[in-house]
């Protein structure tokens, strides 16, 4: 069982507000994300959970007229401080998206893309990174003989595991996952869930999911958001059996959302 008060905190969010075109999307979020564990963000569509996830590696910087207030600390570094190197930030905070989005290049080059970007040129070093990343994402055995084949020839589930391999190839500290199994069938979903459980030994994982059973299966801590506010955050088993807030209770029993 996870004791969130005792665990080491990897990410600290303080008084975070997010506005799109002047409209408040996140309202005064305060949250601590424990290190080397899986934190699930749940809530109805439009509650701000993906927006919150995207704040964690400054993906919202790409959105015109998006404004962020407040502080997000990765360890002790304020990631919104003016001197922050975004390339360096996104190396530390990787992301996997809802739909698998491999680059139109070979399996090998997909995984080697990040390390090359960060200056790794030595072939044997790259080989090693590619192999380790594909092993960690439980894809190696299926692709080790076809590394030069196009990534687009893989199945959806394989593509998503490739995206995980690509994300972890640069050895991030935090892995953000935005509904990573919503486009996958149950078998492929099970493999990704298995993968997430294994990866948490090495990374801090934050996952947005619409599937509450999935959050219950794989996360240690669950945060429930509603209309841009953090309603409740706590150990997953507590949130799904006896939440404190009536709005959480209503949501997990399907009374709204």
């Amino acid at each position: 069982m996870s004791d969130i008060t005792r665990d080491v905190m990897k990410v600290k969010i303080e008084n975070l507000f997010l506005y799109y075109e002047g409209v408040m999307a996140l309202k005064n979020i305060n949250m601590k994300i424990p290190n080397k564990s899986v934190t699930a963000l749940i809530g109805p569509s439009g509650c701000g959970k993906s927006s919150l996830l995207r704040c964690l590696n400054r993906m919202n910087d790409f959105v015109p007229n998006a404004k962020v207030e407040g502080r997000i600390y990765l360890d002790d570094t304020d990631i919104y401080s003016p001197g922050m190197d975004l390339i360096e930030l996104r190396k530390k905070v990787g992301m996997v998206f809802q739909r698998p989005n491999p680059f139109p290049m070979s399996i090998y080059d997909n995984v080697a893309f990040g390390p090359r970007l960060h200056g790794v040129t030595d072939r044997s070093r790259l080989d090693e990174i590619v192999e380790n990343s594909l092993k960690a994402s439980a894809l190696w055995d299926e692709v080790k003989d076809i590394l030069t084949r196009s990534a687009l020839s893989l199945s959806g589930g394989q593509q998503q595991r490739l995206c995980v391999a690509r994300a972890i190839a640069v050895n991030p500290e935090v892995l953000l996952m935005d509904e990573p199994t919503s486009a996958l069938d149950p078998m492929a979903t099970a493999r990704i869930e298995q993968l997430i459980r294994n990866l948490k030994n090495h990374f801090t994982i934050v996952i947005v999911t619409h599937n509450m059973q999935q959050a219950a299966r794989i996360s240690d801590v669950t945060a429930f958001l509603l209309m841009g506010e953090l309603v409740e955050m706590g150990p997953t088993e507590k949130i799904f059996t006896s939440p404190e807030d009536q709005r959480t209770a209503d949501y997990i029993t399907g009374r709204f959302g």
Partner: protein
Amino acid sequence: MMDINIREHIDLELKNLEEKLLKLGKLAIDAVSQSVLALKEQDVDKAKAVIEGDKNLDDMAEDIDMSCLKFMARFQPLGQDLRTVSAIMHMAVDLERIGDYGASIAKRAIKLSDRPHIKPLLDIPRIESDIRKMVFLALDALMEKDTKKAEDVCRMDDEVDDLERQIFRELLLIMIERPQVIEQATELLLVARTLERAGDHATNLAERVIYIVTGKKISASQIRRPREENS
């Protein structure tokens, strides 16, 4: 087009489970009441009917268990839905056990039917009546999600314990005075103890209701009067 609301569907399924449990509860407590009546009136036929009815109770409890499993498989409940279905599974076991106690008292009633009573039976029917109230109140509490009623059930168990202790002292005196009735007195003692146990299961029912409603696991001892030392 029919509008199927999954939330209403879940509520309906849970209501069905609760109603099945209610039916089991009525049968279980009737088994206890009838067995005590058979004991009091030395009615062997009545006692036999209770023993025969026990199979039916077991089947009903099994049916509730299966229905709960199916519900979980289909709806993967969370929150209060999850607490409710888990509590119902436990409550079915408690009720089935109460029914077993009825059958066990009925067997003693048959044993004791061929000899006159060693004393007028007053306190044993009184315990039975208390337990009957407790079970019904606990089931009411479940249907109405009423923690107040559930807490009352826990408090009522104090009286059951008092009565059982009183019966024990009384039968002890009888045994000292008339050793020839020790066998009968022992049977009655065991009946009283069985009823006291049934009271504990009724208290379990109440604790489960409190868990369903509040999400907090409480023990009846937190509600009942403090236990006296050496009691």
